[in-house]
């Protein structure tokens, strides 16, 4: 399974190379315009000058004007800095089974039926349910989704098997979850990185995905080509394979949490 991400490609550096530069440029531009009125020094200087040489009335007017300018500048500054990141991911889904993920919060929701409104006939979804240990199933027959629960979701941090009758490219659209928590129950769960990054699973951000790895944890990555799993486990404080798993963009995977339930929390900040 390969994936191509347009706004935020791979790793933290990818965010730097796409969205952040725009915000930095905006930040610089706005600072130049704001400097005369926005800094404390300038404001005090104006007030001091007029208190000595002009009437109190004019001083008050100037103070008010300066305050309004400062407020305006602050308002315009708030408009300059984006507090979110939106984009899309073009994801290649091969024919047959694969384990997919959606790293973007879709609007209005992340239901499978919303994310895939016009799926190919015969498309199937098997979403792992940690509570039962089995799957919740949906499929497309006669052009419509059917299944016991049509509210199944695929949001950031979640994962599912998909069966595609033929290979296709799907475009996920939405907002990056800047603050996210993926719950990892004891035992098996099917998860993904909440952020659109392909990095070492357990390294600390920004070099890694910040997964809270612990002794005995296991990771199973599905290989669509073979139909089997790529297995790795964390034993004696190290990965059996020598290197940590690196899930791809758009890829979900099984995790076996050897301990008690724990959260996988990520925070990604944008702006100043």
């Amino acid at each position: 399974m390969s994936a191509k991400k347009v706004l935020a490609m791979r790793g933290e550096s990818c965010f730097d190379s796409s969205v952040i530069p725009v915000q930095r440029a905006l930040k610089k531009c706005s600072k130049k315009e704001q400097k005369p009125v926005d800094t404390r020094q300038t404001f005090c200087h104006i007030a001091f000058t007029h208190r000595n040489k002009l009437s109190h009335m004019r001083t008050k007017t100037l103070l008010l004007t300066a305050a309004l300018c400062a407020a305006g500048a602050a308002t315009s500054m708030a408009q300059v800095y984006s507090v979110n990141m939106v984009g899309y991911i073009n994801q290649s889904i091969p024919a047959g089974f694969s384990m997919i993920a959606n790293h973007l919060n879709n609007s209005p929701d992340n239901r499978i039926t919303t994310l895939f409104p016009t799926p190919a006939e015969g498309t199937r979804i098997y979403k792992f349910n940690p509570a039962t240990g089995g799957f919740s199933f949906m499929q497309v027959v006669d052009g419509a989704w059917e299944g016991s629960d049509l509210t199944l979701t695929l949001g950031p941090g979640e994962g599912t098997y998909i069966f595609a009758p033929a290979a296709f490219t799907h475009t996920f659209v939405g907002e990056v979850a800047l603050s996210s928590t993926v719950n990892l129950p004891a035992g098996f769960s099917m998860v993904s990185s909440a952020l659109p990054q392909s990095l070492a699973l357990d390294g600390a951000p920004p070099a890694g995905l910040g997964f809270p790895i612990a002794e005995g944890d296991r990771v199973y990555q599905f290989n669509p080509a073979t139909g089997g799993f790529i297995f790795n486990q964390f034993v004696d404080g190290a990965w059996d394979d020598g290197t940590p798993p690196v899930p791809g963009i758009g890829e979900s995977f099984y995790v076996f949490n050897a301990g008690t339930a724990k959260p996988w929390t990520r925070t990604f900040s944008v702006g100043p």
Partner: protein
Amino acid sequence: MKKLIPLLVLVGAMASHAQDWVVNFNNNVVNDPNHFVTIQGTTTRVTGTNLQAVLLYGANASSLTANTVPARFRVSTSASAGTWQGGDRTLTGMGSTPGTVIQLRVDVFDINRFANYAAAVAGGGILGSSQVFSYVIPTPPLAPGATDLQNFRGFEIVPEPSVIGLGLVGAAALFMLRRRK
């Protein structure tokens, strides 16, 4: 002994809350090409939302329990004739221990004639049944399709004569009787 009672109650409560396995009750996902339900003696695949498939399960083929949630067959224009619109079915009491072998069977009845599966059984209204087949609770992590009923094989049902058909038969019988007189 008194100390043991709360412990036993706790163990009992835990046992009653043990998760039961959930299977995917859909025959169109079975890989074997022989997974369609057909009309007896023909290759015509069954359609009709009045026809309902019910999953029966148990540890022994001789004592199967019905999951009473029926699954309707598809409309006559469906591209997936011969299959039913199923879904997730919980096999209550079977647990979820990997390696557990469960025996399964599929029955078909007409919901226009019987209000539910029990009524159809009581009234002799089962139109057809699959062979008993097995399913083994898989070991995690689950491979894709691990909850599908891959050992299911298609079967035939005996179609019910329609009301009009019955009427015609009756009229023909009356006509024959009158001619004999």
